């Protein structure tokens, strides 16, 4: 379909879901859920179509749409995708769809829940496709704010505290982004907000880049769970309801890393190179710190929350290797984007498995469980699969992602690379500890009555497992996309 604005259509899917949800009276819960499922399904289909339509042999940004938004202020609605955009767009659609399915049993305030969630996804799609700084930030803030009600209303465990902490942390990131992003526009002469045009600007002197880059890196980095600004992330994950955790750890944290790549590294390559060793060190610290802290946690969700800090550290490390330049730059970038995708799916699976158990037990303390695999075989297996993926076992998508990043890291920053690999050992340690304690071992008699995953509840989880395995066995599917496209041949 030439000329069909497929990216805009994808962005509009959740917006339509939002409007339809608002129009349906709150008592028709079933109708709301069906409408959201359909819109999410539509977005999955569109995201797959984007993947298929993207011409890898040509590369670069494709499916561009450009419209005047506010001409006298040079603001345009410009969307387009490169390999990273295609991959992350698909990730968003999958997590959106499986998230809707896994909240099928929601009883309280259904209408509002789906409305806020659709608003969030609307923002996320927009960020991944936007090529205009104003549009990017506009969508970015739309994506961040719904987390507050989503956690505060439907969450658990100190939910109001966690929701406020999360929102204020992320908004504190925006404090740095406002001057950082606007400075890009002003410095370039105040003629365009287009990221690709700005990247060509001769006005970005080295001094300016070195000054401006940390604002953008840290501003977005907060959302990417960047150490030492990760404090919001574990508490936020723990408090959030299942599908929100899925979306949040699965997709939202990627927005931060994506912002760094799309705006920071594209527009300010010299600044990025200058700061790369510093931020790579922080990223490695995050990998090790996250894994270390996860070892001592007794709450399932805290384990996953801190492991997210650790895994996002791998993404940031890969990005900084890319920014630093050199022979392995492309490898670092491949690994980082692959890891964004793999971690997104994996965490979604993790949270959905834990959420399934928590919904029945209202307990998440690892010490209170034992032998879950024999009690709820399917749910337990899901958890084990996600855990293996988190450890980077071959056959799963994240194996390749982590391998690429570590190969690149050892060559660029040998010390950091080795430290990061040591971090991976800790990851294995905490994961196996959880598995040994809760999944295997003696059965806990309290939970003999648990019901296992039914057919319908299996569907979203099966999709996630399938995706993980698909890209684990055929990593070239995704690597081709990332590699041939981010910068073109």
């Amino acid at each position, binding site marked *: 379909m030439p000329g069909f604005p497929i990216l805009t259509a994808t962005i509009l899917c959740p917006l339509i879901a939002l409007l339809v949800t608002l129009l349906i009276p709150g008592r028709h819960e079933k109708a709301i859920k069906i409408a959201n499922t359909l819109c999410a399904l539509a977005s999955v289909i569109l995201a797959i179509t984007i993947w298929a339509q993207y011409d890898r042999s040509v590369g670069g940004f494709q499916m561009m749409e450009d419209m005047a*938004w506010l001409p006298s202020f040079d603001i345009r609605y410009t969307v387009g995708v490169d390999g990273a955009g295609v991959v992350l767009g698909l990730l968003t659609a999958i997590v959106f769809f499986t998230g809707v399915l896994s909240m099928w049993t929601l009883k309280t305030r259904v209408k509002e829940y789906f409305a806020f969630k659709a608003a969030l996804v609307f923002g996320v799609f927009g960020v991944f496709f936007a090529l205009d700084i104003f549009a990017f930030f*506009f969508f970015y803030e739309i994506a961040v704010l719904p987390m507050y009600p989503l956690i505060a*209303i439907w969450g658990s465990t100190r939910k109001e505290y966690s929701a406020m902490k999360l929102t204020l942390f992320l908004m504190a990131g925006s404090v740095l982004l406002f001057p950082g992003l606007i400075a890009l526009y002003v410095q370039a002469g105040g003629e365009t907000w287009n990221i690709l045009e700005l990247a060509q600007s001769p006005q970005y002197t080295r001094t300016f880049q070195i000054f401006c880059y940390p604002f953008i890196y840290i501003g977005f980095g907060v959302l990417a769970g960047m150490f030492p600004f990760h404090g919001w992330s574990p508490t936020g994950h723990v408090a959030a309801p299942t599908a929100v955790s899925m979306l949040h750890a699965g997709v939202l944290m990627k927005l931060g890393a994506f912002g760094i790549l799309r705006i920071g590294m594209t527009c300010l390559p010299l600044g990025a190179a200058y700061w790369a060793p510093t931020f790579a060190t922080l990223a490695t610290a995050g990998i090790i710190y996250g894994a270390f802290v996860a070892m001592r946690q007794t709450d399932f969700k805290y384990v996953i929350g801190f492991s997210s800090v650790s895994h996002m550290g791998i993404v940031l490390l890969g990005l900084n290797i890319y920014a630093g330049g050199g022979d392995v730059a492309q490898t670092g970038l491949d690994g980082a984007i692959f890891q964004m995708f793999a971690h997104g799916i994996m965490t979604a699976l993790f949270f959905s498995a834990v959420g399934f158990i928590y919904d029945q037990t209202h307990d998440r303390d690892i010490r209170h469980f034992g032998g879950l695999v024999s009690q709820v075989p399917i749910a337990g297996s899901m958890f084990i699969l996600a855990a293996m993926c988190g450890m980077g076992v071959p056959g799963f998508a994240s194996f390749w992602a982590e391998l690429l990043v570590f190969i690149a890291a050892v060559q660029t920053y040998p010390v950091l690379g080795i430290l990061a690999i040591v971090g991976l050992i800790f990851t294995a340690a905490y994961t196996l500890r959880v598995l040994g304690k809760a999944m295997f071992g003696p059965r806990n008699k309290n939970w003999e009555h648990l019901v296992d995953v039914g057919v319908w509840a299996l569907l979203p989880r099966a999709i996630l497992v399938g995706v993980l395995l698909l890209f684990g066995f055929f990593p070239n599917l995704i690597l081709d996309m990332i590699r041939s496209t981010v910068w073109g041949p």
Partner: protein
Amino acid sequence: MGNLELFLPEAMVLLGALVAFVASVVGLSGRTTWIISLVMAVLATVVTFVYLGAQGEPFFPGIYRVDAFSQILKVGVVVGLLLTLMMVGNTSSIRERSRPDIPILLFVASFGMMMLVSATEMLTLYVALELSAYGLYILAALHRLQRAGSEAAAKYILYGAASSGVTLYGISLIFGATGTTYLGAIAQTPSSPLLIAGILLALSGILFKLAVFPFHAWAPDTYQGAPHEAVTFIATASKVAAVGVLARLMFLAVPEHDTLVTTLLVLCVASMVIGNLSAIAQDDLKRLLAYSTVAHAGYILIGLVAFTSLGAASAIYYVLVYVPIVFCAFLVVCALGADGSNPTKASLAGLYQRSPLLAITLLVGMFGLAGIPPTAGFTGKWFIFTAALDSGMFWLVLVGAINATVSLYYYLRVIKEAYLTPPGELGAIRLTPMMAIAAWLAMAMVLVTGFYPRPVWELAESAARALVGG
């Protein structure tokens, strides 16, 4: 004499006042008076929109200018008037026997404000300032619970009169330094310490209206003690007029002068910080909004002290979208305080169940004030920060952004009460149809402008061009 036809928008508002006056004198009921005034307000709004592109001088040369700048701000004023009037239908926070007089006072005050944004001569400006103020002084005194009302009004009048006196004194100094009261002629005069002192003093009367630190002390008490509808009007229309006249004075009469810019910068930062920090501690919603007004006056000053066309445009845009945004918040205050009491955070409990429409109106208002997309508050903030950065004030943007985050904290706490706390004993809230329409109207303005800022922004730009071009 110039082209009198250009005065039609103001004349329509004045006519509205007269019609409302006649209606109340012949003894029509409060409700009939209200409906008649509403019709007049709609007519006035339409006429003001029609005269959006008008240009010229209706009276003697040099005292009263009709241009893109004045006309756009007049639209802001009449929209504020119309929205407030729509809500006045159930004025239960206002004394029974005063109710038929409300529309008169609103119209007269709006008339003064519309003249204020057109005045280009110091004495005309002063008269318009007083005209707009007196209507508000009386409105502030009409609270049903008499003592609270008179306290609010007394504070407002005393502060207001004092700042008027200071303004008048400033005008006399300006006259002494330049020998003229025409703003255009003042701009041509070489700067002198006397002139700077005069301008600073003259500005203080305007800064008082805008509740800029250190002229903000009246705002919390007056907001708290005055009837909700009166406060709504003070918080919407009067801010538009104040920003208008402030911009006019700064750009016409203030030559590029470091002392003034530095002073205003200090006031701007102090307003943001003090307004936001004080708002955190408030429990009374009206007091909270009063302090948030102080902070927003600070944001608007960021745009003005940039002293560029872009800065002026961003300030004008901000104050225009601020009207429906803050109206959303006050609509909830009016609906919750229908018995005349002041709503606190506790009275918001379970609002999402008691009235979903009010809850979402509150959400839009609070997100708008906090500057979250897709509300127009976000674009407003973005424009203002861009203008400031364009003038090289990087640190000011940083301070502004930090303040925006601080403010988000207390706005979110308001939303939290409305969406999280169970309703408990509190019953459902019924909105009058007109209130519901006003809520939808204000929300539509906020969201449509948020998604598609082009029309309003282009108006603000042409206003800024008219202003800077002299």
